C-alpha cells in the first residue's frame, strides 16, 4: 500500500515536471514578468534592482527560473486553515496592496521533495538539508504548490526587507533569516510573487 502511495506521488511530481519541461508551442511573451507589477510594486522592484546592481530581477529570472514556474511548501495545518477554510483567492500574506508570497524555482523544490521521499512519507531532515532550512520546518504532512508565472500574470520582483513575512536577522550569526539579494540563507533562489492565484496553482500532497 505504501509503495502504491509513493508511486502515485512520484508520478504526480513527474507529471508536474514534464508539463514544464515539454516544448512549448506558445510563443514566449515579450513582456518581462516584472512588468506585470502595478506602479507601487514597480517602484519597489526598481529600488531593489538598484540595491542589487549589477544584479536585477530580470537576470535573476533568466538565470534561476528559466522554466518560468515557481513552487513553495506549506504545512498541512496552515494550508487547511488559511487557504482552504478561508477560501483564499491568492496565496500569501495579504494587505490592502496585495498578497505577498516567497517562492523558489519549481525544479529546486520538486527535486528536494523527490529526494526526501522514503517509503510513503518524506524525510524532513533530507528536505531541510536540500533547501538549507531546519528539518523542523518540514515535519508532518506538507503541501507543495506550483505556479506558472507567465500563465498567472503575477507580479514578480526581488524580495525586500519590508515585505510581509520577512524574518529579520538579529545577529550576524543568524542563518535562518532573510538576506537581501534573491537567495535564501540556505542559498536557494527566491522571488517575491504578488497575487499568486489559488485557482491557477497545482497543489500536491506530500505525506
Amino acid at each position: 500500500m505504501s509503495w502504491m502511495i509513493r508511486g502515485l506521488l512520484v508520478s504526480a511530481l513527474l507529471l508536474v515536471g514534464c508539463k514544464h519541461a515539454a516544448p512549448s508551442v506558445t510563443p514566449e511573451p515579450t513582456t518581462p514578468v516584472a512588468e506585470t507589477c502595478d506602479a507601487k510594486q514597480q517602484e519597489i522592484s526598481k529600488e531593489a534592482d538598484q540595491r542589487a546592481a549589477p544584479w536585477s530581477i530580470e537576470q535573476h529570472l533568466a538565470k534561476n527560473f528559466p522554466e518560468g514556474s515557481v513552487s513553495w511548501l506549506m504545512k498541512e495545518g496552515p494550508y487547511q486553515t488559511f487557504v482552504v477554510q478561508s477560501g483564499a483567492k491568492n496565496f500569501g500574506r495579504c494587505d490592502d496592496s496585495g498578497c505577498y508570497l516567497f517562492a523558489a524555482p519549481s525544479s529546486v523544490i520538486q527535486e528536494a521533495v523527490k529526494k526526501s521521499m522514503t517509503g510513503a512519507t518524506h524525510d524532513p531532515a533530507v528536505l531541510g538539508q536540500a533547501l538549507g532550512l531546519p528539518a523542523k520546518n518540514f515535519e508532518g504532512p506538507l503541501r507543495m504548490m506550483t505556479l506558472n508565472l507567465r500563465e498567472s500574470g503575477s507580479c514578480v520582483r526581488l524580495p525586500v526587507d519590508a515585505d510581509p513575512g520577512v524574518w529579520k536577522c538579529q545577529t550576524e550569526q543568524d542563518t535562518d533569516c532573510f538576506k537581501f539579494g534573491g537567495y535564501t540563507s540556505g542559498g536557494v533562489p527566491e522571488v517575491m510573487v504578488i497575487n499568486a492565484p489559488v485557482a491557477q496553482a497545482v497543489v500536491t500532497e506530500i505525506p
Partner: protein
Amino acid sequence: MSREQVVHQSPLLYRVLREEDGALVIEVVVGGIAMSAVRVRLTEAEAEAFTREGSAFSDRLAKDIMAWPPFGGRSYDAPTG
C-alpha cells in the same frame, strides 16, 4: 483536544484564538518558501491591548512574530490537527 474559538482571522495569515481556559493565543504563519505556523499565548497586557485596539494591535503583534518567529522563546509549534 481542547476546544478553542476563533476570535479574529486575518488575510495577513494569522488568527487570534480563545482557549478553553479563556486565554488568548495568536497563531501566525511564519517562513518564506517553506511556511509553518507558530502560536504565542498573549500576556495579560497584550490581551488588554487586543481588547482595546482590536486588529490594529493583533496586526502589529503578528508582524513582530513573523519578523522573529522564536519571539524570545515564547512561541511554540501550532498543533497539526
